[in-house]
């Protein structure tokens, strides 16, 4: 496709925005206009996120407390299983709070993945009728998940007071951790929602995938336990970006330690590299999604 097309309108003649619609290329540079466009649609992102959160709680009797109940009930189950029955070590903190501190960010990640898979397919009527940047759909699920996370973290604070676990300045490292988690969550949301359009059976595998992923991440057991595994398996284990996020979250909040920077930088690197790739894949699928959805 050549670009030597002469445009007839004199320069500066229009104060209007110009939009060019063409087939999506392969280069990440084609993502810049998309990012600019997202900024214009800020209002829609806000409205849809509020709507998403409102609808979820309007429909359930438990309402907003569901955000708290989910990690809390999982914590109870795992405490019963792993602390009482299996007697897993918990880094010198009570197992209950150990598990909750791991489950909290994990629940955020899990809800983003399972909810966003159907973000596009579930809104097929919108996609075939009106234009707006499609990435807004999975994005609103990320925002709703973040909202739930913030609500549920209030319980963590309550638990820390109850168990008399001291808070250190290292807790501020949660901010970059959550940023990395959110970026990675966005990549996964984009990847999954786009794949679901092309391969409708995808969504069926997600619950299983999440279950396996959870056990491959130190959510309900400490990272130190993997020393029992052979060396080459340990190396592969550490490639999981969620390892750095979950383990460090627990370290800085509940154990009061500075984060393991090596693990943190690995997770951050993966998140930053995967995001533009996932976005590009998403844009390519979505360009003609209306034809096949």
């Amino acid at each position: 496709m050549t670009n030597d097309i002469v445009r007839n309108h004199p320069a500066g003649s229009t104060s209007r925005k110009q939009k060019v619609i063409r087939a999506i290329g392969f280069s990440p540079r084609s993502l810049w206009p998309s990012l600019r466009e997202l900024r214009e649609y800020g209002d829609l992102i806000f409205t849809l996120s509020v709507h998403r959160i409102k609808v979820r709680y309007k429909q359930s009797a438990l309402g907003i407390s569901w955000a708290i109940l989910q990690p809390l009930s999982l914590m109870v189950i795992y405490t019963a299983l792993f602390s009482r029955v299996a007697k897993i070590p918990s880094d010198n903190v009570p197992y209950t709070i150990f598990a909750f501190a791991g489950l909290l960010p994990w629940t955020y990640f899990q809800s983003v993945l399972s909810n966003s898979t159907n973000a596009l397919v579930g809104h097929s009527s919108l996609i075939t009728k009106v234009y707006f940047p499609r990435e807004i759909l999975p994005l609103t699920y990320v925002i709703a998940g973040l909202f739930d996370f913030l609500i549920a973290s209030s319980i963590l604070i309550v638990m820390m007071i109850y168990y008399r676990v001291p808070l250190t300045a290292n807790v501020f490292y949660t901010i970059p951790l959550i940023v990395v988690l959110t970026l990675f969550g966005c990549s996964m949301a984009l990847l999954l929602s786009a794949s679901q359009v092309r391969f409708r059976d995808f969504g069926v595998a997600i619950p299983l995938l999440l279950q396996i992923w959870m056990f491959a991440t130190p959510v309900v057991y400490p990272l130190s336990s993997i020393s029992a595994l052979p060396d080459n398996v340990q190396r592969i284990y550490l490639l999981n970006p969620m390892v750095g996020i979950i383990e460090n979250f627990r370290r800085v909040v509940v154990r009061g330690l500075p984060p393991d920077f090596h693990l943190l930088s690995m997770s951050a690197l993966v998140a930053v590299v995967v995001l533009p790739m996932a976005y590009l894949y998403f844009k390519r699928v979505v360009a003609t999604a209306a034809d096949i959805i």
Partner: protein
Amino acid sequence: MIDISLEHVSKRYLIRQEAQIDQRRPAVLHKLLQPLRRPHEFWALRDISFEVQRGEALGIIGHNGAGKSTILKLLANITTPSSGEITINGRLSALIEVGSGFHPELTGRENIYLSASILGMKRTEITRKLESIVEFAGIHEFIDTPVKRYSSGMYVRLGFSIAAHLEPDILLLDEVLAVGDAAFQAKCLKRIKQLELAGTTIVFISHDLYSVKRLCSRVLLLESGRIIASGDPGEVIKTYTHASRIAHTESRNGLSFTNPNPDPDLQFEVEQVDVLDRAGRLKQELRTGDYVRFRIVWRAKEYLEDGGVELGMYTENGVPLIRYSNQPISGFDIAFRPGLNTVDLEFQQFPLTAGDYILSVGLSRPMIAWLHRNDNFGALTVGQGRIFNGEYLLTSDYSVMAVPHRWIVPEPDLDDRELTAPGAVEIL
């Protein structure tokens, strides 16, 4: 100033066809091999290029499958071209498929915010226009009830009202204009006219040749994904209807028109129009002055208490010569029964002269909505018929109508005799 420009735009669809299942092979094998089968290519648009000037009203016409709805989707950016480029200067709003994005659990007010922001309005803009939107739709008392309680009319009016309050630089319109009652339709049309006067660029994609001719200053004709004519609305429409005539075939040993674009999704659809003589047999030819009955046959999938049936005849330029219906023209209702229905429109002396005309049909809920409409149902050729006493046989170039009339010639030196004289002609 160019508002829209399409340069060498093509659009290809890949259609995966279910292959024939080979009974000898296991079904599982068939399912596994499915992704390996090469999909069938269908080019909806081939190398389309055109421009729309600022303030222009462009119409796009063509048969079903010509590519009209593909162009609509591309301009609205619902899909992207397979090759080529589309440049749009300004904010484009599509007045198509209203009511999308409504969530049944939310109230009217909440849905206005939701739907309007999907359509591109900012929150402050929506708040400013809220009163006017509610007013236009006429749902003031119900604004805070969930929309699942709304009647279908209210639903549609609200959706339309939101879309009507967009202030786009470019407006994209399709068949959706025929919604609501006559009063609401008039409001919508007035709004579109307002936008047109304000200099909004309009692109109108439709089957309704008459409206296209009224609204547009230029028309494009699409056929199989290519532009085959462009220019003055009258001329292009004539090219379209003339081309259609060649495609239509006469069947069943006589004059009969079957639906050229059947649509199985419609609840009510005209299947055919037969041209009958006094004995109820198909006429071989229709001439000026003949006794004729047009039998309209339509299929209904459900019962309808008061339906409207319309038959029309237009010149090739789209001028409506005859357009009669039981409602609202003749003032009586027809009940549509499930299955086939017929009604006859009778002319004792068919009034059109020799020439080529376009037949149009319509089924409606009178003054509420069109159920089925086709402005190009068939090409009717009328032959010469002798009904007046003179030598010259009328043709439509000369005089389209052959209406009973009388000449009254005065005698110059008359006392008080009758005012009929030798030379006065009475027609049959």
